[in-house]
């Protein structure tokens, strides 16, 4: 096993994929600097810098994929998808159906997401539930370097559109760029196991839509993804001192959602807390509640620790609006009392 940082793993897996498949290319703003190593290896035909024109280059990515290429379109921050959502909402997601199942769109959208570094409400959203709401889109959110590399390969190998979200607290270059800016006197709550870790000697993809049990337990299931799984693991450690045994499920994929893993775990623990950095209402956490209700897994205790408001600029308020360990602990203890 070798050790890599989160972003390093993504780049390493991407290099591997681009070396083996000449149809893969990248396109987006500032990729000549953001992906300079890929530019150095593959040249500017395959690492294409664009103007600030997301609606055009994402829309173009859709048809480039339909023409047989394997585009990876970069949207700098998922918040900026607002200006280009049509390409996903009305095109990438629907063409397979409209064509009677005859024309697929093997597109990857690579984008950064998430908060915790003081950048305010237009730069720190997660939005994965919002995207997964659209039938025909797959959405994946890795939580550690090994998954980051392997899931990127899954996204690239998929014959259908996949949104791949890298959290800015895990990807060191994003945090340096948007958070620290080279300063040594600011620090953020970066989960170490997410930022750096062992990765396979040889990159291989993981199955699409499969969750991962990070910790087994009997009393409560914490269902999460991205940076929040690390908050869950920290909470689980603390709760174990109170003799509360916690299972932590890393969903990896918002869509397709691993229903089976959710049902199996909750059938055992009968208590579940969804810890989701995305917005609470009408999203992933509600979807999980619906699945459990539909499967008649009752009686259970259900709760959620999610983002309920516009993310405030104030760091202290921000830390409380985003899911954190204390909020998880408070709810878990309430369940067991």
């Amino acid at each position, binding site marked *: 096993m070798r050790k890599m940082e989160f972003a390093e793993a993504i780049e390493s897996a991407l290099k591997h994929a681009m070396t083996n498949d000449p149809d893969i290319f990248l396109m987006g703003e500032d990729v000549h600097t953001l992906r*300079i190593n890929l530019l150095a290896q593959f040249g500017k035909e395959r690492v294409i810098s664009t103007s*600030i024109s997301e609606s055009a280059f994402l829309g173009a990515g859709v048809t480039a994929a339909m023409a047989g290429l394997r585009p990876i379109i970069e949207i700098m921050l998922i918040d900026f998808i607002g200006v280009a959502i049509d390409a996903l909402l009305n095109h990438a997601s629907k063409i397979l159906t409209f064509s009677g199942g005859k024309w697929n769109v093997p597109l990857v959208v690579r984008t950064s997401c998430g908060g915790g570094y003081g950048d305010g409400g237009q730069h720190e959203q997660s939005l994965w539930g919002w995207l997964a709401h659209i039938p025909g889109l797959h959405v994946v959110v890795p939580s550690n370097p090994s998954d980051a590399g392997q899931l990127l390969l899954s996204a690239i190998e998929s014959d259908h559109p996949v949104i791949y979200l890298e959290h800015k607290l895990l990807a060191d270059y994003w945090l340096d760029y948007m958070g620290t800016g080279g300063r040594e006197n600011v620090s953020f709550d970066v989960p170490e196991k997410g930022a750096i870790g062992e990765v396979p000697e040889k990159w291989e993809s993981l199955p699409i839509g499969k969750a991962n049990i990070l910790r087994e337990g009997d009393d409560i299931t914490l269902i999460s993804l991205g940076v929040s799984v690390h908050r869950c693991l920290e909470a689980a450690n603390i709760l174990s001192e109170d003799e509360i045994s916690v299972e932590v499920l890393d969903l990896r994929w918002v869509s397709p959602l691993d229903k089976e893993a959710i049902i199996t775990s909750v059938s055992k623990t009968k208590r579940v807390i969804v810890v989701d950095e995305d917005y609470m209402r009408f999203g992933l956490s509600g979807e999980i509640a619906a699945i459990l209700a539909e499967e008649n897994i009752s009686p259970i205790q259900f709760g959620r620790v999610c983002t309920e408001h516009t993310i405030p600029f104030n760091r202290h308020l921000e830390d409380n609006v985003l899911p954190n360990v204390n909020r998880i602990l408070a709810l878990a203890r309430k369940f067991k009392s």
Partner: protein
Amino acid sequence: MTLMREKTILELYEAMYTSRYLEKIVTQLWEKGNIYGEMHLGIGEEAIIAGVLSHLIPGDAISTDHRSTPPFVMRGVDIESLLLEFLGHPKGLCSGLGGHMHLFCKELLLTSSGIVGSSGPSAVGFALATKYQKTKNIAVAFFGEGSMNQGMLLESLNLASSLNLPVLFICKDNNWAITTRSNEVTGGVLLDRVRGFGIEAREVDGSDCMAVWQAVETAIPRLRKRNPAPYFIQASCTHNEGHFLGDPLLRFHRSPKKELGAVTGPLTKSVLHYKGGRLDKRISSVSNVLALIAKARAQLSFSNDPIRRLEKTQTHLKDQFAQIKLKVEKKINSISERVLNLVQEEASL
């Protein structure tokens, strides 16, 4: 050309210097780690903002981009409340909830946004409201040249033109969009593009506040008349701090050993990787990026600085300028001291 009164020149100087000095304080706070996240400054574009705002009257609206501090200061927003906002304080302009990219002031009709191009539709809406309400007011949109390839801004040009709306579009052109040279990703000529929408458009040296003032002086009657028309000004400028504080391209120049060291290892490996594009193409791709880093250095020069420029050309106002400087520094120093004391006191509670 209208002859500019001395009073106007001094007012422009004071506006520019106030914004500049405040942003210097902001820089210190950011460097000390008191301000989180990104911090985009308007240092270098003060002449453009001052030259435009000098012509505005009460009731005019301004939509800014991510460099919102200068327009907010020059339009008269309380400096203390701005500083507190940058620190995320509950007593800040937006209760610490917005931060520097998301400043709003309802009373003065000032908005900002971190979404590139969004000042276009924003100003169109304000202009629509003034026309609807039959006032003489106008709306100003500030944006960078990089935004001129964003669909919603181009759509706004058409909307303003076809609906005859009093929008003053101000394109602040530094030819950079983060690490991209805008001319390398832009087809055609911006002014031709704007004229294609039927909008009168002109260029101006944005480091010369008097030239900007004159240009807007010509535009204003077209905007405020009974049947108004939009107007477009492309004003050149240089951002001394690059894209934002801690700009990675500028860091290469400020501490080359530390920054370049981290990059060159993996980079050499990639160029020499046994599989990939043709070697000559790889090398030229990389040398292009290195040339880009070299070009970034030009931003560090103060040769186009709007404040120095005015000082140089208006030497007969030297004494008045010096007095203004003293006055501004004294005022802002006392505000920033008060703010820092407050923050420190609260931190120790």
